[in-house]
């Protein structure tokens, strides 16, 4: 469980509104909102990359500020957006780094560590590429290799910053399903997603942000309305249920012929 209590995330030039929010365990929560609304900043504060300017962040009931770096890394893991790997390491090496918080400074892998890495690679469909250099992978494979590192870290809370970037539809679905199953294992999963329809379909809980503040949260069917999308994204949409899952999907309205001309 992750609790925010009047927590203010931000930098000198840009700060979010005080946030009080709970991400429950066993639930897949999605953060959505337009570009630059502060989703990533919030995620960075939760993972303690950014200290809250005021207020508190608690992870599993304990104040994040009081945890040692290693303790923190055993409780929460973040998949950042950029995925640059150092030269000359293999997929298995990279996944193995996820075990670092469970090892001593020498980084000697135990049988448990190896089992976690093997399972993570298998789960990410990378077992056949275990010895391949990360640098030789395609963008999507690389993203999955970093996801394998996150799985190997095996934390009760997991954060994902746009995890479906770089991925084709097959692997997008694979990753979203993976996050669902991680939540089903009892973990607290929070992902920043861009696609509202995907978020509504796969997440249990949506948190909608605009201009650094949370404007709505709740079950997807309640949150995703034409009014909300109009307010947050400044675009007129119609909401129709997904024919497969029944979850809400926003469809942009046909622009009136004058509107485009005026905009252009």
């Amino acid at each position, binding site marked *: 469980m992750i609790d925010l209590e009047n927590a203010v995330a931000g930098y000198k030039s840009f700060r979010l509104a005080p946030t009080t929010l709970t991400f429950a365990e066993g639930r897949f929560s999605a953060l959505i909102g337009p570009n630059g609304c502060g989703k990533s900043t919030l995620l960075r504060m939760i993972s303690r990359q950014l200290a809250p300017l005021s207020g508190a962040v608690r992870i599993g009931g304990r104040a994040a500020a009081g945890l040692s770096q290693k303790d923190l890394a*055993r409780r929460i893991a*973040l998949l950042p957006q950029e995925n640059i790997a150092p030269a000359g390491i293999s997929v298995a090496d990279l996944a193995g780094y996820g075990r670092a918080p469970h090892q001593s400074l020498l980084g000697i892998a135990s049988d448990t560590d190896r089992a976690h890495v093997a399972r993570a690679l298998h789960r990410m469909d990378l077992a056949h590429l275990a*010895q391949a250099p990360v640098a*030789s992978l395609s963008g999507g494979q690389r993203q999955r290799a970093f996801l394998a590192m996150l799985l190997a870290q095996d934390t009760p809370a997991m954060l994902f910053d746009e995890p479906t970037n770089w991925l084709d539809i097959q692997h997008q679905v694979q990753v979203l399903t993976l996050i669902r199953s991680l939540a089903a294992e009892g973990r607290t999963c929070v992902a920043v997603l861009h696609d509202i329809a995907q978020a509504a379909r796969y997440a249990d809980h949506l948190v909608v942000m605009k201009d650094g503040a949370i404007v709505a949260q709740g079950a997807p069917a309640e949150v995703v309305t034409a009014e909300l999308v109009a307010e947050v994204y400044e675009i007129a949409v119609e909401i129709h249920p997904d024919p497969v899952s029944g979850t809400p999907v926003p469809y942009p309205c046909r622009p009136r012929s004058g509107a485009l001309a005026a905009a252009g």
Partner: protein
Amino acid sequence: MSDARRPEFPDLRGPVTLALLGVLLPALMFAGLFAGAIPLEIETVVNSLLGRDGPRQDFIVLQSRLPRALLAALAGGALALSGALIQALMRNPLASPKIVGINSGAAFAVLVTAFYIPALPHSLLPVPAALGGLMAGALVWWCAQRGDIDPRQLTLVGLAVGLTLDAGVDALLVANTGPESSAPLIWLTGSLWGRGWTHLASVAPVLLTLATAALILAFRLDLQALGPRRAAGLGVRVGLERTLALLAAVILASVAVSVVGVLGFVGLMAPHVATRLVGGRHRIMLPTAALFGAVLTVGADTLGRAIRPPLEISAGILTALMGAAFFIWLLIAEDRRI
């Protein structure tokens, strides 16, 4: 992309490379005992090593060429390790102790000491060298420190600081032209000329201690090389570990510089080649880089004495030539990859 499925033998690449370098290094050092102004027979060298020959040969082999070979190996290894640390910390394959200004800082400090405090014994020169290197390092750090440290910024500031200190070195040389100024000049080009056991004894403890520490904690560099955010996410206290590793890198390079001068390109080349040979895991890459750096330096020193005896060509000149060739090869190799 096509080689993603290429079968690899990561468990063998490392040991095989290390074993080959481990044989090559002593072989080169042994060969180095023959090269120089006075050619020696195999028998003489072996007898000297076993302590069974006349005083003249003993002096050449035991007092001059042997410590020199050991020193070349040690300094080359230290420069290579320093380069590997810096490249991992800055996540920049083009970073090296030379490029971030450490070598120049050490050289500047050594020259200041040599010219203005001539009473200081030569065996203490590693101290001002380390201070000079640390000062250059701190200056680079301070200039680049605005919130998050951007590796590219750090490299550029390092270049600027290095160039400034190089200008200082030139100014010192010009201001102190005299009969004694040719020795510093030879040293500056990266030469082991006139080095012996006292020099070895003055630097070996520091260099060996730091090298051992770096090799033991190699795994932490793997995590650092992922970048500060990811490393922190894996439980690394980034600020502390980065500072310690950088301190080690600065001291390794500047102490090496204090005895062998500015030996260019070893710190840049050795980690590159090691990564290509055995991959990027520092547990294997660091010892490979260190051995390769030692081989390069011993090779350059031996070659420099063998080309036109009794003339000596500075090892630094030869490593610079190799470095130039290496860069051109790297360019072509990288080109072919894409």
